[in-house]
């Protein structure tokens, strides 16, 4: 069953290949690809002519597997898909099941879910910042980023029981109630993080070398971003207004005050600036909510075994990478008939070829860093 991998020597597809072109393989095991991504690049000197991603090195057949899991069990597999925004993925799945059952979630559970969402988003952007700076060449931000992430991981561990893949959402609410120290710890974190974000800006954003590597590199226009289906911070940097929290609000987002960050330049530096500003917005959302957690139930009463009515249901949430959609087709049983996860990375990756043509091979790493891929999210 296991045979030798083939080293790709010719590109496939219909683009013409000159005799002076060179084909190189990057990955699947490579420190800069954020997971297992295999790129076959056609180069002419140092200029890229074509980038072809080969996926599937972490394809775990999640959609087929979910057809045999019950409606309470399949939520936790989505934690392992985009593991940096695992709570937001779980939230999306639970919203879909609740929409189908027409279940009302108590206000306390909704506020707790949004708090955990925004903390997860800050953790994901922090790790993105550290990894991206390491790709571009700066090694110090990696350690600084993990210092803040450890504070969030401690809060998550005391509340949910796990650091990375927290299985905290159930259809109907959250699994356990908050512990009494939660508010104090989150407030300590907010106070600490506010000073650190300014430090991050000083360290990397205003750096001359960083700006030379990212300004005017990897441009994508607004129409192309919509046509390729790019969502999330990568699209908002090209001027597309696509924040699901503003357009189709879910949970308590319609009662909160926050801005949607839009830049128009469309290059790597704009994508970077959008994410840095989003971290500040998430922090302000956490500040608004942490003093106003309503009392009450943390979980609505549901039956032990859930059966969805016949039909199809689609929900979308805004993860740290873009729009995550859950499409459930149900035939009335205890397991779904077909589940499709619309993952943000899949569409963002299809735009990589278009973005990277014509730039140099050294810019490819900066482009991939700002597009922020998590490969298990793409392969599912």
């Amino acid at each position, binding site marked *: 069953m296991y045979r030798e991998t*083939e080293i790709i020597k010719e590109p496939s597809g219909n683009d013409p290949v000159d005799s002076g072109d060179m084909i190189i393989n990057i990955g699947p095991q490579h420190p800069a690809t954020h997971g297992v991504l295999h790129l076959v690049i056609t180069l002419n000197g140092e200029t890229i002519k074509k980038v072809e991603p080969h996926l*599937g090195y972490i394809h775990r057949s999640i959609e*087929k597997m979910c057809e045999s899991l019950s409606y309470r069990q399949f939520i936790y597999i989505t934690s392992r898909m985009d593991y940096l925004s695992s709570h937001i993925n779980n939230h999306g799945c639970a919203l879909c099941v609740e929409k189908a059952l027409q279940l009302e979630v108590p206000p306390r559970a909704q506020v707790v879910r949004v708090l955990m969402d925004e903390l997860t988003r800050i953790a994901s952007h922090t790790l993105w910042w550290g990894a991206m700076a390491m790709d571009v060449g700066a090694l110090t931000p990696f350690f600084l980023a993990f210092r803040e992430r450890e504070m969030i991981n401690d809060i998550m561990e005391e509340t949910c029981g796990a650091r990375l893949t927290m299985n905290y959402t159930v259809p109907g609410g959250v699994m356990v109630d908050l512990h009494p120290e939660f508010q104090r710890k989150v407030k300590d974190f907010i106070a600490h993080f506010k000073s650190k974000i300014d430090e991050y800006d000083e360290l990397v954003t205003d750096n001359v070398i960083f700006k030379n590597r990212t300004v005017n590199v990897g441009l994508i226009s607004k129409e192309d971003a919509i046509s390729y*289906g790019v969502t999330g911070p990568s699209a908002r940097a090209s001027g597309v207004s*696509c924040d699901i929290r503003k357009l189709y609000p879910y949970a308590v987002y319609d009662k909160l005050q926050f801005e949607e960050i839009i830049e128009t330049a469309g290059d790597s530096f704009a994508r970077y600036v959008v994410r840095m500003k989003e971290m500040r917005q998430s922090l302000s959302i956490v500040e608004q909510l942490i003093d106003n957690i309503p009392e009450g139930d943390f979980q609505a009463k549901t039956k032990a075994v859930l059966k969805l009515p016949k039909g199809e*249901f*689609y929900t979308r949430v805004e993860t740290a990478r873009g729009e995550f*959609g859950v*499409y459930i087709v149900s035939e009335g049983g205890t397991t779904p008939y*077909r589940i499709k996860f619309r993952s943000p990375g899949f569409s963002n990756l299809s735009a990589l070829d278009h973005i990277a043509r014509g730039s140099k091979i050294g810019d490819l790493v900066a482009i991939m860093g700002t597009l922020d891929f998590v490969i298990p999210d793409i392969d599912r």
Partner: protein
Amino acid sequence: MNNEQIKIAIADLLPSAIIEESSEWLTIHIESVDWLPLAEKLRNTAELYFDYLFCLTCVDWKSHLTMVYHLTSTFHRHTLVVKSKLDRDDARIETVTMIWRTAEFHEREVYELFGVNFLHHPDLRLLILPDGWEGKYPLRKDFEDPVNIIKL
């Protein structure tokens, strides 16, 4: 535009489309041969202007396959779902890669997992599955794998 106006516009463009409103968005059922002209008109008509294809998938009902396309307009903010029935043994439909560029990867994935042949696709081959899996369509309901899959 709200649902009523979209229904009138669709009825003008394609009178044979069957419109239903049972789920949260307006759904139309069309024949697979009508898909490409309708898609072009949906994208290019100014009042409709569906420029964002956000989900492209296939569902295997045991007697036939159904392609499902979710479209929305970033300008007018309305959503439409297009469905098309395909024959199980000879599943073919036109590609929409030239209209919405995101369809290129999504259609490759549906090709390898369900076996739907997309006509005039620029590069139709395996994307996620390893080599040697052409012809086995894992997400179909009659996929047999006695080692790994336990039938409930």
